[in-house]
């Protein structure tokens, strides 16, 4: 069995996986409430929380999977990108465990964890990954589409400014909704209907050759519109709901537009599968739109289980299973806040 540890941001997570990708345990200790008073993740507090949660989670995960330490054949750990102090808690813990057990340690790129996460199942073995697929990672820190060939990913586009999840969070914060804002916007938006006449969000104009995302314009527009119309968490409920629905629509519309641009650019033969991943991939409206977009093109669409959207160790373990060649000596693992 493979043990996986993830501590790159504000979730401490420990998972146990079988070689075929069956997730035997995937426990997450979220620190969301701890960071709420600050309106965002505080690195030092995150690091403190990780150490507090890591060892209790390890013991619980083993119990959950009905496993013993002697069943653990390898350890996967997120080595970056992320908050350096937070990463170091997971990496140091993993080093001690792997060295003590005498098993290999597999450093994992957090982003790769997301890339493959749509192939993990709630129960049983992972869905076999095709030789090639597109993977769109959308979260608080990323908005990028990757072309994944034989497990090697090539980034096809990126955001010029804010990530889509960051845009959700910042606008939610501005109107007084609690962190993280994405799920809040979706929740209130469900009660309303998109009204682009009342809330004319700016639509960024991209040059023909550009594949990039850009969310800062929509963010600025949202803040201006919210101010003009007096949209607040405690204000008129109907206006709040319609605002949220329209704002969410604008974000998703750009996502689909960019996906289209990327798709047109890819040479034949094109991939036959598309996966989405990351915290924003839990958004129900977005899932429906991507499923429809893929359906119209005859593609297999892989939507991740919601539990594997936000940061979790199961996806880190799964990425390590695709990368067993990168197993290393536990003494020599380096954590990096930025990974190129």
């Amino acid at each position, binding site marked *: 069995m493979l043990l996986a540890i993830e501590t790159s941001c504000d979730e401490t997570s420990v998972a146990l996986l079988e070689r075929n990708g069956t997730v035997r345990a995937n426990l997450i200790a979220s620190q969301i409430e701890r960071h709420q008073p600050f309106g965002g993740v*505080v690195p030092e507090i995150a690091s403190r929380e990780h150490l507090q949660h890591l*060892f209790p989670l390890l013991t619980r995960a083993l119990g959950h999977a009905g496993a013993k330490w002697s069943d653990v054949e390898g350890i996967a750990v997120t080595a970056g990108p992320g908050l350096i102090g937070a990463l170091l808690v997971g990496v140091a813990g993993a080093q001690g465990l792997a060295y003590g057990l005498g098993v290999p340690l597999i450093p994992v790129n957090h982003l790769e964890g997301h890339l493959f996460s749509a192939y993990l199942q709630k129960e049983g073995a992972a869905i076999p990954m095709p030789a090639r697929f597109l993977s769109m990672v959308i979260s608080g820190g990323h908005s990028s589409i990757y072309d994944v060939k034989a497990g090697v990913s090539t980034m096809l586009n990126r955001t010029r400014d804010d990530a889509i999840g960051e845009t959700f969070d910042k606008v939610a914060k501005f109107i007084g909704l609690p962190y993280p804002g994405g799920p809040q916007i979706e929740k209130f938006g469900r009660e309303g209907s998109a009204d682009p006449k009342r809330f004319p969000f700016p639509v960024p104009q991209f040059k023909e050759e550009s594949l990039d995302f850009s969310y800062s314009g929509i963010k600025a527009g949202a803040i201006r519109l919210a101010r003009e119309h007096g949209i607040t968490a405690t204000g008129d409920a109907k206006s709040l709901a319609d605002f949220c629905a329209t704002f969410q629509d604008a974000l998703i519309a750009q996502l689909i537009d960019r996906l289209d641009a990327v798709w047109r650019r890819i040479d034949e033969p094109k991939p036959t599968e598309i996966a989405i991943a990351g915290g924003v991939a839990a958004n129900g409206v977005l899932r429906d739109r991507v499923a429809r977009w893929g359906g119209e093109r005859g593609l297999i669409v892989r939507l991740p289980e919601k539990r594997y959207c936000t940061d979790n160790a199961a996806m880190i373990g799964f990425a390590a299973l695709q990368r067993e060649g990168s197993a290393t000596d536990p003494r020599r693992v380096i954590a990096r806040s930025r990974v190129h």
Partner: protein
Amino acid sequence: MLILAADTSLPLLSVALLRDETVIGALSLEGKGSRNEKLLPSVDWLLSESGTPRESIDLFAVTRGPGSFTGVRIGLATIQGLALVLGKPVCAMSTHEAIASEFHQRVVIADDAGRGEFYLSEFEAGRETRPPHLATAEERSRLHGHVVDVSAYLQRHNVAAGCARRALEIHRSGALDRYADVTPIYVRLAEAEVKLQQKRSE
């Protein structure tokens, strides 16, 4: 009894391997950069050069700070990981307690905490009488009696070896249970927390 001890809270990282009171090996290494890149290689060097299988370690000893926040976490996470899979106990103590174990009289341990402040703690024959706390430079200058300056001490002694010796005493007196708390001794709150409190009290 074989004891492996580590301190990663101070500017010089140290590890030591002792058989009861006798040092088998000890080393200190500048802690610059990420201490996790030095701790396990150091532990491994001690064990392999002394021909000690890791399974034969009976007790792990580690410091909990005060000191570098990140350093303390690296030491605690690594040593806990090792001890957990090897099924051996951890004796975790304040960094100052590891230092004070060498002194038989009343002693104040003082360490520069940056920003013109100091971490102080007090001991009577190695037993803690006042836990680590923050003090101003003025309070530090008014201290009388035997004061041990941590940065000067560090240049002449291996802190991990002191930590191992103190752990042995604790083990012999049957008090290991009281040293099972492996949470860091930060003394200071996270900066963001301080600012939030100031904002609330305004």
